[in-house]
């Protein structure tokens, strides 16, 4: 029986007196889910993610997060669309940041920082500055920083949208591996049907204006997955199914794309 981790109850988000970004969104996200929010621009998927992270207050409704047992450390990792690194600090210090804010000294955090960097294959770059790294490497640092607190939940807001296809595929595999090894619950925002199917075991298709849940789909292929999955008939079939759901949503939303 899956245990619920995050529950959204009739959540609505309106910015000022204007745009309703999310309306009447109810959703239960279970522990261990790899869930993608998929939808067109402006459908409120990033807003929903930021509300779950506590970065935006809900206008009405409620979001309940089951507290972690016996852990006072940061329970949530967040990876933004941009790598969002501090350019004045080397890679090591960027990964240290969440622990530093929690009052953990550089020395006490060193082992964990090195392990997080090793997990994303950047051990040799701990003294480099962000400007010396490629886009993909910067995103790996961002993932290492999110993982260094050993969170239960990883929130990712279109993290690979700006990367080339090859780098994106590699990072997709890294995220699956990290999620499987650490038994993470991942909420992943994306525009890409292919990415959402490859990564997730559950896809929430969202409709726009106002942002709402249009379909809640399960990807039944075995998880964790590897590169081989991309060339299977099951992958193609799942992509077709999700694409149809997305297309229906777009025609209902009555917006130009």
């Amino acid at each position, binding site marked *: 029986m899956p245990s619920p981790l995050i529950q959204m109850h009739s959540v609505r988000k309106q910015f000022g007196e204007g745009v309703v970004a999310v309306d009447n969104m109810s959703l239960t996200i279970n522990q261990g889910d790899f869930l993608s929010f998929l939808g067109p621009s402006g459908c409120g998927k990033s807003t929903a993610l930021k509300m779950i992270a506590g970065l935006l207050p809900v206008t009405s409704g409620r979001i309940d997060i089951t507290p972690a047992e016996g852990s006072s450390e940061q329970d949530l990792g967040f990876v*933004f669309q941009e790598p969002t690194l501090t350019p004045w600090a080397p890679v090591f210090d960027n990964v240290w940041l969440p622990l*530093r804010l929690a009052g953990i000294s550089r020395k006490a955090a060193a082992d964990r920082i090195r392990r997080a960097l090793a997990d994303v294959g950047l051990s040799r770059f701990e003294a480099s500055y*962000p400007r010396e790294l490629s886009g993909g490497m910067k995103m790996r640092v961002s993932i290492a920083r999110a993982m260094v607190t050993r969170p239960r939940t990883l929130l990712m807001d279109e993290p690979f949208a700006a990367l080339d296809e090859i780098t994106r595929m590699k990072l997709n595999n890294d995220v699956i591996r990290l999620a499987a090894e650490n038994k993470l619950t991942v909420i992943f925002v994306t525009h890409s049907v292919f990415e959402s199917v490859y990564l997730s075991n559950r896809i929430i298709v969202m409709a726009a204006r106002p942002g709402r849940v249009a379909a809640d789909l399960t990807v039944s292929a075995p998880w964790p997955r590897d590169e081989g999955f991309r060339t299977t008939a099951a992958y193609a079939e799942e992509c077709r199914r999700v694409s149809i759901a997305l297309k229906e949503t777009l025609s209902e939303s009555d917006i130009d794309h």
Partner: protein
Amino acid sequence: MQSSSSTPRHLVITWLKGIVAPLSFGAGLLLFWQFAVTWNEVPHYVLPSPARIGEALMEDWVTLALSLLATLKVTFLALFFAITIGVGLAIVLTQWRWMEKSLLPYVIVLQVTPVVSLAPLIIIWVGDINTSLLICAWLVAFFPILSNTMLGLQSADHNLVDLFEVYGATRWQKLVHLRLPSAMPYFLGGLKISGGLALIGAVVAEFVAGTGGVGSGLAFRILESGYQLRIPRMFAALIMISITGILIYLATTWVSWMFLRKWHESAVKREV
């Protein structure tokens, strides 16, 4: 393979362009000046030759050097207070919006009022001449640091602000680990401007104070030389002020480069 931009020949050419070219131009200008003054027999009380200015500098070296020290003391103290009060006030004004709304208009009034019109009042009110000079120079120097640092503190990347929110950072942590480092390039830009302005402020204040018969800075030496028609000495003092200004600019540029060289686009050398 060695790129053409890093060959010894190329490096020498770059060095020549960077250092020798401006020095040669200056030397040529001095030679022309010397020649033009001598050839046309221009009186030294109208335009002295560079050699004559050099002589005046040698003759009056001790007096001028002491005056330079007095001006430098005011300049650096003013710059020190411009940095501490400018940065301190920028932090206070950006942390509390109501403080910004309450205080900033008056800070701007102080900035836009010409220091020459305030200086006599400050001298009368404060009494002590050195403190008066310091206040005048500080008034001129502190605003670029204040406004630039405020801009920098408000320019932290919004995603990074969100990241700090996610990790439950306190206001103090956001200030120390995010806003102050973000503001560093802006502050250093302000410092470059304020370094020169502190000197200008000190000299202007000395001029105003000098009219009251008190003063030992370089500006007073210029006034004194003007009254006595010792124009070469006047030029010598002027040149000392100019060189001091250039050195201050170079020093602040170096400080800026030291802080930013590893990460900021303005200081990082691009590979070609």
